[in-house]
């Protein structure tokens, strides 16, 4: 078999990921970001490590020491998840870590809820779905996990969701944001229908759309559409709305990259 000399490889391809890798290990980077409070730190660390049992143990310890369960959701669980999201955004950790942390955080929230009668306040409600006729739901599952991880209440309608079911859910849930995922050029047209039916009913909420087949030009064709390329954009769009950018044109300016 022919072979290449080691020194010849660089002229043929560049492993940019290797060349650009951050010096710091993920654990070190996380350590720098954890909150310093003795009771909060173990919760954040357990979230980063994705260990559900440790999250619950750490929460229990904090509650035993006098912390309020509901306050712990924001002050410990969300902070820990914030560390994870930042590391992901910075390219230091990868998605599976985020998914496992999100699972651990949700287990933590459920635990806090069992320790009190108070009802936690969330950042906002988001309805998510995969377009009618389309069963590709992995991207949507990532979107919902990241939204939840960022403190949003998610109503997940699942995949292959009929247009009318989307409209009914939006009327009922009154979300701040609707998301749609489509991976096929044949199914993404459902987004236009959703858009038109929402407008008919006088509902004007941002409709974030993404998924393999979808592109910015297509999404720009209907009034409520905001295109997002990556799953993480969904929670960034939601954050922008919470921060006061509710106008679709302004959102497009921020998130349309092409």
């Amino acid at each position, binding site marked *: 078999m022919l072979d290449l000399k*080691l020194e010849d*490889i660089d002229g*043929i391809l560049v492993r940019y990921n290797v060349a650009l890798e951050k010096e710091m290990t993920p654990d070190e980077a996380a350590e720098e970001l954890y909150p310093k409070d003795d009771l909060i730190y173990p919760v954040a660390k357990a979230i980063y490590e994705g260990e559900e049992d440790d999250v619950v143990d750490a929460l229990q310890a904090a509650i035993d020491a006098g912390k309020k369960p509901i306050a712990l959701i924001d002050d410990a669980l969300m902070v820990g998840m914030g560390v994870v999201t930042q590391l992901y955004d910075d390219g230091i950790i990868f998605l*599976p870590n985020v998914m496992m942390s999100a699972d651990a955080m949700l287990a933590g929230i459920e635990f806090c809820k069992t320790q009190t009668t108070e009802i936690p306040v969330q950042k906002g409600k988001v309805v998510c779905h995969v377009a009618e006729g389309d069963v590709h739901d992995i991207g949507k599952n990532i979107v919902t996990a990241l939204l939840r991880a960022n403190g949003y209440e998610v109503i997940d309608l699942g995949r292959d969701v009929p247009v009318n079911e989307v409209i009914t859910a939006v009327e009922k849930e009154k979300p701040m944001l609707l998301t749609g995922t489509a991976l096929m*050029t044949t199914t993404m047209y459902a987004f236009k229908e959703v858009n038109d039916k929402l407008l008919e009913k006088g509902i004007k909420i941002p409709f974030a759309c993404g998924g393999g087949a979808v592109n910015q030009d297509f999404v720009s064709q209907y009034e409520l559409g905001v295109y997002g390329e990556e799953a993480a954009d969904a929670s960034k769009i939601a954050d922008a709305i919470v921060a006061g950018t509710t106008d679709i044109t302004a959102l497009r300016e921020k998130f349309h990259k092409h």
Partner: protein
Amino acid sequence: MVKKYTSMAYASADELIFGQAKFPVKAGLGLEIGGGYTSPEVNYAPRPGAGASKEKLIKEYERITTDIMARMVQIGAPSVVLETEHVQQMSNNPDWGGAVAHAQKTIMEEYHDEYGIKCALRHTIGDIREDRNFLQLRGDKYNTFIEAFEEVANNGADLLSVESMGGKEVFDYSILRNDTAGMLFGIGVLGSMDMEMIWSDIADIAKKTGTVAAGDTDCAQANTAMFIAGGLLDKNLAHTTAIVARAISAARSLCAYEAGAVGPGKDCGYENVIIKGITGMPMTTEGKTSTCAHSDLMGNLIMECCDLWSNESVEYHGEFGGTTVQCWSETLAYDCSMMNVALKTGKAKDLRDILVLSDKFRDPQGYVLAYDNAYKVGQAIVKDGENNYLRAKNAAIECCNIVEEGAKSGKLRLTRFETNALAKVKADLEALTDDADKFVSDNLTKFKQEVAVFKPENYGL
């Protein structure tokens, strides 16, 4: 009882070459696949809206077929295969699929009669065996699914394929959580079980109808891993983990050939390199010519031992150079022409090695699929060929070893992240039992709890 592979078809990796298979397949109108030359295999998708009615859809496929055949004749291509991947209407209404196959074959026959161009038609049935929220692998949908094969086989399709989905509910969950045992269970155990069921039925249909049971790909799982892994800078999945999923998928896709399929394996099965080494059957692959459908980090390498060379899929519409199917079929045909010259001039192995080396160190996925390494994965599979679980586990471990050795040589450079992910997968694998029954029962319990949509009855469990 199906016969399991316990040895390699080729005595050495070096015998793996494009255009030549140990067991060539005659199909369609004068074609011999793997019989000493490569042919383009063109794949396409109808425009959105074309599926509105049966008539519209047939018209669309007639246009597509005519366009391709005309272009192939215009540029003097000796042979071509057309692959129609069913849109769901065609598999859910088997008579639609049959009608499309008939319309396409009629046109292909006209071209064959007039010009003598060798050609064959592959129909890939959609795996329609699911409800909105659950897989429904057995039951009513299965009957429609099988009927869809019969209809196309009776109406002109020469090669029968599917990208089946067994195990995907467990895999989807596991791949996003770095759950190695789950990957192995989803692909290697559940996927293999489902494959054995459907492919013995498809092989029966092929026998009855005089068509070819061609093969399956693990698109639903191994390609999902590859796409989630993405490009060099994507942060969604370690590429070292993705290639382990691919190695496992070879053990799974092999089940089709054990149950009666004879090749050519379908284009998007990047595991086909490994499978060709084991079975000696012809395979289709796709790479630089499928950039219209996805990016894969091994566009040249994966041509190394193809018998048919594909573009994966392109939506039918106009381009400056003609319709998309004309542009892409032409590109494929010129690639095949280059490979065929290499075969005739005794330079095939050199060309193969050049293709391989241009991508071998680009990514761990290409590194493992380079024929020398792919062959080793094949050997690991056949070592315990009788045991679906063990052979899948062997493939995964061998894959880890290959990547480790590549990294040690200095030529395959890994990020620390990839190195750590690899170490984790390997440690997970080494901690697993060798007892298949125990593995299955442990994971059955685990995934029944963790994955709400996992229904063991889909697998007769």
